[in-house]
C-alpha cells in the first residue's frame, strides 16, 4: 500500500514538549510542509522567539538562530540584508511580537523586509505561566488579570494583522487559525503562500495563527478549541487582509 501521510522531511524526530492540546505542533508541521514543498530547507534560517516556542529549533532540521524577546524581526532583517539569497522566517508568540517586540515587527514590515513571520496568537504569555498579553480578550482571566482583562485600564486587545495591513508598504498579511481541520487547511495554504512570496522576493509576508493554550486558560483541549472559535474568531476575523496584488489594485 502506498504511504499517503508521513513526517515532513524538515521536521525532526524529536518529540515536542508542548502541553496537551497546544497547537504549536500543528503550526510547526504547516511550516515544515511549506518548506519541504518549496524545497528550500537547504537555504532556510529560522529564528526562534522567547516564549513556549523558544526551543522550536529542536523540532526542525535546518539552520536556526535564537532571538531575544521580541527581537526576531530585527535579526531576520540583519540576515536578509546581508544574505538576500537565504529564506528567513521568524516564529513568534503574542507576548513576544505584540508586546515587547511591537517596534521591531512594525518597522520590519514597513521597510518591506522580505522575510516571513508566523505569529501564533493564543492570548497569553504561555511559558511564563499565563500572564496577560496585548492580545488577551476583554474580561479574560489570566494570572496578571485575575478579575478579567479590564479594558478601561489596559485597553482593547491589539489586532496585529490589521495594524500591519494598515501600512502603505506592499505585503502579504493573513490571519488564519489552527483550531479545526477546515481552518488548518486554509492556514496551510496561507503559510505556503507567505513563503512563496519570499521565494519570489516579493514582499514581507505575515501569517497570524489563532491558537489555544488549554493549560493557561484552565480548560480541557476540547473546551479551549470551542472557546477560541466562539470568543476569538469574531474579534480576530480570518482571511487575507492584504496581498501585494491588492496594493497594486488600489
Amino acid at each position, binding site marked *: 500500500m502506498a504511504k499517503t501521510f508521513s513526517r515532513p522531511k524538515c521536521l525532526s524526530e524529536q518529540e515536542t514538549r508542548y502541553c496537551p492540546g497546544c497547537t504549536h505542533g500543528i503550526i510547526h508541521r504547516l511550516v515544515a510542509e511549506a518548506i519541504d514543498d518549496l524545497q528550500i530547507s537547504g537555504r532556510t*534560517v529560522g529564528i526562534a522567539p522567547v516564549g513556549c516556542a523558544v526551543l522550536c529549533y529542536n523540532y526542525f532540521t535546518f539552520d536556526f538562530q535564537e532571538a531575544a524577546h521580541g527581537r526576531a524581526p530585527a535579526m531576520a532583517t540583519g540576515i536578509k540584508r546581508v544574505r538576500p539569497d537565504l529564506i528567513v522566517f521568524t516564529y513568534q508568540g503574542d507576548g513576544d511580537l505584540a508586546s515587547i517586540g511591537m517596534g*521591531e515587527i512594525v518597522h520590519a514590515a514597513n521597510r518591506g523586509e522580505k522575510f516571513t513571520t508566523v505569529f501564533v496568537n493564543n492570548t497569553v504569555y504561555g511559558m511564563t505561566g499565563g500572564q496577560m498579553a496585548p492580545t488577551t480578550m476583554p474580561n479574560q482571566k489570566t494570572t496578571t488579570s485575575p478579575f478579567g482583562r479590564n479594558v478601561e485600564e489596559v485597553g482593547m486587545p491589539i489586532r496585529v494583522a490589521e495594524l500591519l495591513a494598515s501600512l502603505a508598504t506592499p505585503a502579504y498579511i493573513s490571519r488564519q487559525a489552527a483550531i479545526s481541520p477546515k481552518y488548518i487547511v486554509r492556514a496551510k495554504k496561507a503559510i505556503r503562500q507567505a513563503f512563496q512570496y519570499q521565494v519570489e522576493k516579493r514582499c514581507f509576508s505575515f501569517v497570524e495563527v489563532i491558537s489555544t493554550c488549554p493549560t493557561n486558560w484552565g480548560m480541557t483541549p476540547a473546551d479551549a478549541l470551542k472557546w477560541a472559535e466562539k470568543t476569538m474568531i469574531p474579534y480576530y476575523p480570518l482571511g487575507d487582509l492584504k496581498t501585494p496584488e491588492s496594493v497594486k489594485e488600489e
Partner: protein
Amino acid sequence: MSKVLMKGNEAIGEAAIRAGCLNYFAYPITPQSEVAEYLSRRMPEVGGVFLQGESEVAVSYMIFGAAACGERVFTTSSSPGISLMSEGVSYIVGAQCPAVFVNIMRGGPGLGGILPSQADYLQATKGIGHGDCRLLVMVPASVQEAVEMVMMAFPLAEKYRNPVMILGDGLIGQMMEPVTFPDHLKTPPSNKNDWATNGMDTRKSKTRNLVKSLYLDPEALNAHNLRLKAKYDRMREEEIRYETYNTDTDYQILIVSYGTMSRVCQSAIDTLKAKKIEVALVRPQNVFPFPEQAVLEAASKSSCRHVLSVEMSMGQMIEDIQRSVQGKRPVHWYGKCGGDVPTPEEVMEAVEKLIPA
C-alpha cells in the same frame, strides 16, 4: 597609500570598508552620526549594506542576525545608544558571534551632554551586558589609531568569536587628522562554516548549525561559561597592548591615561620636563584586557612616588590601576567629565600637587 585629511567618524567608516566589512547597521546619535551619513553614501559605491534601524535595540539584533550568518558586520553609536545595544551585545557574546561595536563616548549619565567624555569605561570593561560577558575593548588616541584599531578589530572578533569594542572619546570622532589606511591590515574573513547559520546549501553540508545562548541545564550553562571564560583568559594572555612615554627617566609620578586624554598628558609631561620634573606615562591601547603588569612595573620603579589616573570620567579607570599597583604606591585621580577636555596646564597642576615643595 597616501595620507588624506579626514574627520574621525568618516575615517572609522572608511576603515571598516578597507578591512573588508561591507555591512553596517546604525541609528543616529551625536557625536557620531557622521559615520552613518558617510556610509549611507559610501556603502552603495562598494556594493555594501547600509541600513538605518528603528532603534539601537533593533540595530544590535540586526548586527546579531548578520553576524550569526558569518558575515563581517559593525555598528557605531554613542553612550546612551550603547546602553540600548547592551542587551544585544550580551546575546551576541552568549551566542559566540564576531561583530564590531564602536562607541564614540559623550557625557552622561542619562542624556548627559554631547561633548567628549570617557565615562563609559566601566560599562565597556566590566558591565557591557548581563551575564558573564566581556568584550575586547580598544581605546584609540588618534584618528590614525582609530583607523588601525577598526581594521584590526574584525579579525580579532573572528579569532575569539566575540564582539570587539572600539571605545573612543568624542574628540576621536569629531577631530580631523591626516590618516592612511594600511593595506596590510586588510585580512581575509575566517572560516565560519563550522558554526554560522548561513544555510546548509552554502556550506554544502547536511548538518544544520544552531546559533543560541540558551542552556537550561545548569551543568551545560556552567560549561558554556567556562568556555567563554577561557576566551577572556586568552585575551588577557594575548591582547595586552599599551605604550609608554618617558619611562626611561627617574620619574616621580606615573600617569596612566588613554585616548585623547593621554595626548594632553604627553604635552604636560614635555612641559614639566623643561621644569626638571620627570613624569612618565603608561597609555593602555586596550583597556580590556588591562595592562596590569606594565602599570605595576612602571609604578614599582624606585623613583616613582605616586600614580595618577587622568581620565575624562570621575574615577573609573582608577579601579583597574589600583588593582594593578597592588597597594605599592598611592593612586590618585584627576579628571573632568562635563565635556571640556582638561588642558595640559590643568594636568600639570594636578601633578605638581603630588610633589612636595
